[in-house]
């Protein structure tokens, strides 16, 4: 359970929410997108209060975010291309524009050869890259990511971190949850330590 968690993330900032398993990192991210409801308190994203049932305003907020959060998995019955295209479909982009953006995203993440593959046939690293491609395909201003490098081999984890750093360098606001301190240092930016449901500011990571 999260208690008395208060923090603010400014545009272009990178914040790593750090804490052990079960400390509430995923819950916090899910609260931010309205997938779960807080009993008390207020949450604002882009000036919109995230509360209550899904409204068109909440839907618009969700569309402005890139999501790589637990509970938003790849759908096993859709191909890689279809999975990556889901946020574009949610944004009601015309089919032709969708195809173009999917192609660009797959190319950026080195997944051109996997477009018609199903998630069950992908390696762990490829799954993470598809999730990232899906999260960034709409070129969102904010990315919420949950354990982006967990269970990846060292090389793949480095690739993912490089992608996140590059996106942040281009202006992406980044909010990453992790249980490993390493990611905070790799990404740099502000650290928010979650422990026993409470949050405190940690020491900043090294400058990138």
């Amino acid at each position, binding site marked *: 359970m999260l208690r008395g968690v208060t923090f603010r993330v400014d545009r272009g900032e990178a914040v790593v929410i750090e804490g052990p398993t079960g400390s509430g990192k995923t819950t916090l991210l899910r609260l931010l997108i309205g997938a779960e409801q807080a009993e008390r308190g207020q949450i604002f994203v882009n000036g919109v209060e995230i509360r209550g049932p899904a409204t068109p305003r909440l839907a618009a907020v969700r569309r402005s975010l890139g999501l790589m959060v637990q509970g938003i998995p790849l*759908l096993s019955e859709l191909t890689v291309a279809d999975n990556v295209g*889901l946020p574009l*479909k949610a944004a009601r982009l015309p089919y032709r524009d969708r195809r173009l953006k999917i192609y660009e995203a797959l190319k950026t993440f080195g997944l051109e050869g996997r477009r018609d593959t199903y998630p069950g046939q992908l390696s762990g690293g490829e799954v993470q890259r598809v999730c990232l491609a899906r999260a960034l395909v709409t070129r969102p201003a904010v990315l919420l990511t949950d354990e982006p490098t967990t269970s990846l081999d060292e090389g793949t984890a480095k690739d993912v971190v490089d992608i996140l750093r590059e996106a942040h360098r281009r202006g992406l606001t980044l909010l990453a949850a992790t249980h490993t301190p390493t990611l905070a240092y790799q990404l740099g930016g502000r650290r928010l330590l979650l422990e026993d449901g409470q949050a405190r500011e940690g020491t900043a990571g090294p400058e990138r």
Partner: protein
Amino acid sequence: MRKSRPATGGVILAAAVVLTLAGGCWLVAWNAWNVMRLWRAEVKLVVYLNETATQDTVAAVRTAILSEPAVRNHRLISEAEAMTEFLQMMQSDRSLLEGLGDHLFPVSIEVWVEESAQTPTGMDALASKWRQLPGVESVRYGEALVRELSAAARVVWIVGTVIGAVLAAGVAVVVGVMANVALRAQRDEIALLKLLGATDGIVFKPFILRGAATGGLGGLVAAAALGGAWWAFRSRMTGVGDGILNAWLDRMVFPPEFVVALIGLGAMVGGVGSVIAARRVNRLTA
């Protein structure tokens, strides 16, 4: 959204079968009602004038009858014309009427009225009014026939509408079940799309449109099946029956509007069924 062609084909077929039954009911009811309406239109009021009625009296009665807006047509029958018609009908000559008096057939006026007045109440009202006119002996019409035809037309219309409506609701259920199955199969995708910011319209519109299209196609197939059955029936029956049957068949029609109505109805109930299914799944993925 993915779709299963065999499943969609099956639902179109099921919708077509139910719509064919519904359409068949309506077609029979509509034609039966129409034939009864035409029969009823043939029913006339006959105003008999008394023996002492002068030319002026007849003219005055005629004027009074024609002043009624409900009067569609009329025919004045003189004594001589009435006698001729009677003898023609009896296939006999004047010797049949010898000794029965001079004024055996009174002057009469046959009156046909507009459809709005072809009801027991309407006919009664006109008859009562005309009975009060000076020189009028009596006013008669097929009261019993008018009542029976009106009652039968009402029963046919109600039964046809009720059965057709029940069957049309069946189409909504068939298409709704299909939409429900499709929506539940894609529940994860729907939930995910909503988390990614899709509005209900974006998520459910394709399902509703597909439901309407499925119902509409079912209606088209049903119209084709009914049209084919109608054509076969008419081809088989032409020249088979006697004069009355042929006259009856001639009055039965398969109106082109019926095709449009079946397609429209199929699309509408298909859309409604899909909307209901979408609302139920929406609650599950909220």
